[in-house]
């Protein structure tokens, strides 16, 4: 009886894994097949002679009346749903503005929003979906670094350019990836400024470093650790938790034995808030200061941590915000969604600019063929995004570097005072 059940179960598992294998093989072959063609074929075969023939791979043909589809990978579920939603809504405003300005040669834009869930796994799923869709011109996103690492190789193979508004891990952009771009500033900068702030401004010499084992959290924690040691400080502990953990007392108890003056945490809102709270419950950490990073620079952090957050520090990769543009943006945002963007998350303006960057580049490469179709060659678009220069966005004047760093601005550090963030250090601080 039991043997039979086991055998039946095994057969079931075998069948299931076969199906999964087949599915897994089927998906990547599609994008993989595409890129073999375009570099050679795209330029010569495309011109007006063959407007009705099937388009070359990598060339998006929008028929008259069709929409220009821009994919979006947003962390709508996962650890930071509110910032994810904020980023999606920022992108929608940008699409609205582009359409209100007439689109491109009369063709309007459309945002195809998917849930990247702030995870590499889900980023892969979203990227495969976009790679398999020949109507997707470019992608804005992902929200988190891990998610964007999921997008990166697949979109690179499928030759779809992307611009991330908020993924800050340094390795998101690299020499070998010509489709990878971002508006957010790299954590290479954030980690260093944070270390300087702690060492020079606060004058502390002994810190503990914690992270949530995510690509983002661990990445920024390592940069901070190295920068702090380089300045001459001492890092007494370097510990990892997991995204989704809720009880950090065991780790904190261990960290407390080294009596650090400050605890640095690379990670997202909920974990940062719970750590701030539980530090008050661990003997030896009650007076230790806390410094979190942009992933936790949210209203959600303040709401969750409550009074425990008072006096905590938080750093953020701020744009070179243009006050008048931001005000106009906020007005439209509030009118459309009925909520102030800051209540959800910090990256709405970067998200607007990500879409702006894509739209601007599309305008430069798109052309109309004799049948009235709009033709967008993604290879040309990849180059056009990189060539962006002096584009006036909400977060400053955007110019893309040769490896796709397009953001402007600097790192800011805030402290929590009466339940609100107040800037105390860094970029654009008015004294």
């Amino acid at each position: 009886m039991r043997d039979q059940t086991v055998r039946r179960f095994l057969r079931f598992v075998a069948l299931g894994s076969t199906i999964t294998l087949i599915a897994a093989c089927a998906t990547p072959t599609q994008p993989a097949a595409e890129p073999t063609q375009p570099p050679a074929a795209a330029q010569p075969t495309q011109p007006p002679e063959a407007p009705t023939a099937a388009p070359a791979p990598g060339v998006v043909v929008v028929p008259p009346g069709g929409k220009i589809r821009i994919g979006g990978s947003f962390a709508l579920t996962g650890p930071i749903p509110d910032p994810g939603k904020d980023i999606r809504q920022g992108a929608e405003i940008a699409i609205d503005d582009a359409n209100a300005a007439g689109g491109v040669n009369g063709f309007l834009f459309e945002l195809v929003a998917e849930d990247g869930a702030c995870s590499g796994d889900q980023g892969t799923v979203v990227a495969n979906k976009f790679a398999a869709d020949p109507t997707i011109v470019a992608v804005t996103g992902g929200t988190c670094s891990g998610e964007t690492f999921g997008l990166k190789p697949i979109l690179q193979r499928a030759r779809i350019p992307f611009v991330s508004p908020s993924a800050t891990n340094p390795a998101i952009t690299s020499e070998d990836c010509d489709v990878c771009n971002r508006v957010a500033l790299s954590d290479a900068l954030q980690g260093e400024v944070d270390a300087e702030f702690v060492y020079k401004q606060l004058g502390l010499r002994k810190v503990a470093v914690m992270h949530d084992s995510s690509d983002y959290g661990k990445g920024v924690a390592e940069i901070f650790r190295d920068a702090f040691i380089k300045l001459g400080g001492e890092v007494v502990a370097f510990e990892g938790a997991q995204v989704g953990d809720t009880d950090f007392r065991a780790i904190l108890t261990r960290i407390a034995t080294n009596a650090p003056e400050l605890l640095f945490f690379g990670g997202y809102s909920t974990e940062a808030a719970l750590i701030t709270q539980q530090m008050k419950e661990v003997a030896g950490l009650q007076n230790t200061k806390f410094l979190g990073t942009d992933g936790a620079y949210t209203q959600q952090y303040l709401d969750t941590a409550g009074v425990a957050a008072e006096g905590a520090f938080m750093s953020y990769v701020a744009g070179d915000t243009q006050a008048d543009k931001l005000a106009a943006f906020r007005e439209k945002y509030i009118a459309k969604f009925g909520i102030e963007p800051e209540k959800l998350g910090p990256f709405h303006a970067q998200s607007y600019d990500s879409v702006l960057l894509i739209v601007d580049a599309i305008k430069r490469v798109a052309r109309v063929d004799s049948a009235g179709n709009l033709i967008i060659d993604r290879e040309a678009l990849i180059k056009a995004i990189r060539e962006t220069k002096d584009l006036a966005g909400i977060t400053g004047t955007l110019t893309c570097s040769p490896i796709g760093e397009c953001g402007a601005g600097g790192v800011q550090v805030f402290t929590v005072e009466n339940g609100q963030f107040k800037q105390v250090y860094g970029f654009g601080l008015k004294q």
Partner: protein
Amino acid sequence: MTTLIRASAAQQQGKPLRLAKRVLGAALIAAALVRAISVSAAESYPLSFWAAQTVNGLVLGGVYALVALGYTLVYGILLMINFAHGEVMMIGGVAGFFGLQLAAALGLLGGSSLAAALGLLLVLSFGMGVAALTGVTLERVAYRPLRNAPRLAPLISAIGASLFMQYSVLLIFGVRPMVYQRPPLIADGIRLGVVFIPLTGLIIFVTSLLLMGSLFVIVQRTKLGRAMRAVAADKEAAALMGVDVNQVIAFTFLLGSALAGAAGVMLGLHNGVIKFNSGFIPGLKAFTAAVLGGIGNIPGAMVGALVLGLAESLGPSALGIPAEYRDIIAFSVLVLVLVFRPSGLLGGGEVEKRA
């Protein structure tokens, strides 16, 4: 029945394999012990550190124990793993969140200590009640129709029910974590020398002991408990003796789920947040604890849970490895225990058949 099969399977394995397994297991344990002793001697954490970690471990173990009891009760009677049990805990936690909001709105929690304690008790009962209702409904809808189906069917049904509950909560209440505002009465803690014990942790541990004690009394001393044990021993014979098997099984789910609900509320108060997937990991750990202690055995679930909680909090420091590997330690303990005692720490031929 399962014990018999396991025992015969062990015999079939033959002596050399069993010996090899045991030698390997003993070597691993010895290595771990040597490492632990050398590390604790070398890094010389103060005694207060070990005391604080023991407190953390006991609190964690208390939560695991409450959830593990549900697994063990259901397994004892139906020989089935209720994989949706972690989600019952989560729903208890969600109910507790709304209970707490309501109690706060009624001004119960800010006033005198007595009123606040009463309010908290009401919140706890509300969470337990909702969880109990969820558990009974779960049994009625997802398991009873499959009671005579092959054993794989209710297992798959349980996994389906688990996903259904998770995503229902996600759709209804959204993805944002629900934040428990800890009432002032239990916001602080007790200072024992240099060790700080959060009140919520103390409450978890004491309540767990109390609830487990009452469970033991119910199962061993009451008529319903006797009926439960009879159904566990032999469903058909119990039915022939006039025991209403359906009712007894429903009651079992009610008890187990109420305990899980209590765990959900207390976890919310202790850690501060509950969201749609909050039940998954604790559920998995509690299941591990139940197996570790000997599934189907009530004291076993408790012992297993405390061992697991302590292994997780003390293990990384004792072995001198990063804290992020605590799960590896927890599951290594499970594997080692199962190598030496396949039926768990307290599980045995006779005991296992008792609920």
